[in-house]
Structures are given as structure tokens and as C-alpha cells.
């Protein structure tokens, strides 16, 4: 084995072991790296009790209620739901049926008291006409099913 082959082997081996180490570290930190808890995780008691954390999911359609400055809505991951109350200004992309991440604490009556609400955008980009067509198709499908 020539010296340079040896150096290649050392670099390759080093990178491989580093990769494996990184994999284990990230695996161990998995729950800490996640930005938010889903309603299902909260229902299973995985979220911290008396500490600030984030809940993420979709704003359930038809649940947004405005009462002066306080906004109430339900965050769902289609399996479980968490009711959220928030006083403040919502981001532009906050919409029913769209993604949302709220930061705050769990209240005594199972309601999540948010201090900050962020909108989560999805990966779809389309012009308004295309969006309109998609919405229309969705509505037609719904009417047909009824």
C-alpha cells in the first residue's frame, strides 16, 4: 500500500466513522431537534407539562373564532386535536386548513395558551387560476360524495 492509498483509506474511514457517530447523536437527540409536538404526541403525554413548547398541525376548518383580540382555533393532525387560544397578530399565511405552529403552554382546561403563532407554508407554489381550479375540483368532489 502506497502512502497516498493509506491517506485515502484514513480519510474514507474517518468520514465513515464520523457519519455513523453523527447518525447516533442525531438519533438520540431526535425529540429535541423536532420543532413542535403534534396533537397526537400531546394526547399521548409526550409534551412537557409546565414548560413552554410548540404545537404544530393544521388549523381545523371552521374552528377559527375571533373574540375582540383573542383568536381561538383548533389544531389537528387529522387524528387528534388541540384547542388553541391566542391574543395577538396572526401572520398573513394563517388560514383554515393550512399549517400552523403555535408556541405556548398547556392551560388547566386542556386549552393551549399560545404566545406566538407562526404560519407553516407547504411546498406547493401555484398561480391563483390554478389554485381556483384545484379548489373547484375539490368542491365538486365533495358535492358528489354527499
Amino acid at each position, binding site marked *: 500500500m502506497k502512502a497516498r492509498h493509506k491517506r485515502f483509506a484514513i480519510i474514507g474511514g*474517518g*468520514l465513515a466513522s464520523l457519519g455513523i457517530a453523527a447518525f447516533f447523536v442525531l438519533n438520540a437527540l431526535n425529540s429535541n431537534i423536532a*420543532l413542535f409536538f403534534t396533537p397526537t404526541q400531546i394526547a399521548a403525554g409526550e409534551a412537557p407539562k409546565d414548560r413552554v413548547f410548540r404545537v404544530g398541525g393544521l388549523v381545523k376548518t371552521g374552528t377559527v373564532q375571533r373574540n375582540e383580540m383573542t383568536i381561538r382555533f383548533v389544531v389537528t393532525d387529522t387524528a387528534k386535536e388541540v384547542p388553541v387560544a391566542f391574543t395577538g397578530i396572526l401572520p398573513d*399565511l394563517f388560514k383554515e386548513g393550512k399549517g400552523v405552529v403555535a408556541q405556548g403552554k398547556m392551560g388547566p382546561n386542556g386549552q393551549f395558551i399560545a404566545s406566538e403563532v407562526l404560519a407553516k407554508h407547504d411546498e406547493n407554489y401555484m398561480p391563483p*387560476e390554478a389554485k381556483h381550479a384545484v379548489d373547484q375540483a375539490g368542491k365538486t368532489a365533495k358535492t358528489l360524495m354527499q
Partner: protein
Amino acid sequence: MNNKIIHWFKFGSPQSFYPLAGKMLPWFVALAVILGIAGLWLGLFVAPTDATQGEGYRIIFIHVAASWMSMFLYAVMAFWAGIGLALNTRLSSMMASAIAPTGALMAFLSLWTGALWGKPMWGTWWVWDARLTSELILLFLYLGFIALQAAIDEPRRADKAGAILALVGVVNVPIIAFSVKWWNTLHQGASISMTKAPSMAVTMLWGMLLMALCLWMYSIAMTLMRVRAIILERERHSDWVKHAVE
């Protein structure tokens, strides 16, 4: 066959690469300008408004391209640094040093444009989610690489120290790429992937791809320009440089 290999490795020497880089440079600059004009025209004037984000989505024409380049350039930098470490070839290490500032610029652009977009869309400039944090680490890796090399006076030792840092940091690149898949993040998932059709309108996609190509050409041009300067600086005691400068 044998002839071809020798011919190829000829450009591994700084002396023969210097004029070659000089010849290639104007072509890449021209391509970058043309692709940039085409991409910006398509992105800012032709591409339709986004249904939910309005005009603000147009950030993607620089943000996505810069983010891709920041990751790709890091991989290329680590590759050349590794080759330089293993084969002791001077030009490879010079290439790694030449790539670093452009890579840092791309990482910075990605973070900066992302923050500008995040404030109106998400409602925050910054959030410590996996995608944003790992991209910030990438910027720090670039800056660390540059600082480490600048701190060591002897070029060959600086190359070696930098190469080890660059190789260790390469672990971060797949973490950035897959962060939105592995963990839940505020940052959205990929709009373009190998396995499914892109989830965006065609003109938007073309604007984005042209801008990505533009930044490729820009990065190559800047790297060639910088590597020429590094070659002259490091080889300044050799005869051919004295000739070339005169």
C-alpha cells in the same frame, strides 16, 4: 490511452492551470450574466403570482438557488481539500481555498433572503428549526475554514488544517438536505425532488432553474478568478510567475 491520462493530469500543476483558468474565465462570466438576465426576467416579470404568498414568493428565485449552491460548493470544497490532503497536490488545496468565500456568500444569501421572507410569511425572522440551524452551521463552517487558513502562515500547513475541518463539516450537508424530511420543521419540504413531479407552476420552475444555473456559472467564474490570485501569490518565488507578472 496512457497519453490521455498524462495530458489530463498536466492541469494539476498550478503553472499550466493558471493560463487555462484565465481562458475559461470570460466564458463563465458571460454565461452567468446571460443566465442571470434570463432567470430574473422569467422570475420577476413572466412567472405568475403565487396564490397564497402573493409576490413575496419571488424570493425563491435567489433563495433556492443560493441554498443549493451553498451545500454543493461545500461538498466540492471538501472534495478538493480531501484530494489535496491525500495526494499532496497543491492545486487541489488552492481550489478548496478559492471556493470557500463564494460558498460562504451563498450560505449567507440563503439565510438572509430566508429571514426576509420568513417575517411576512411565517411571522418570524428566525426560528431554531433543523433546516435553519443546520444552514447557519454551514455558514459557520465556511467562516471557520477561512479563518483557520488565514491564521496559519505556512500555506501547506494551512491547507492540511483546513482540509480536516472541511472534511469533518461535510457531515452537515446531508443533514441540511434531509432535515425537512427527518424532523418536523417550520421550513417547508422540498418542492422539487427526483421521485415526484415538481409541485410548482412551470414558469416558476424555469425561473428557478435558470437562476440556479446562473449561480453555478457565477461560482465557477469566481472560483477561477480567486484560484488564479492564489496561484500567483503562492508561487510568487517561481520563475514562471515572475515572467507572467512582468
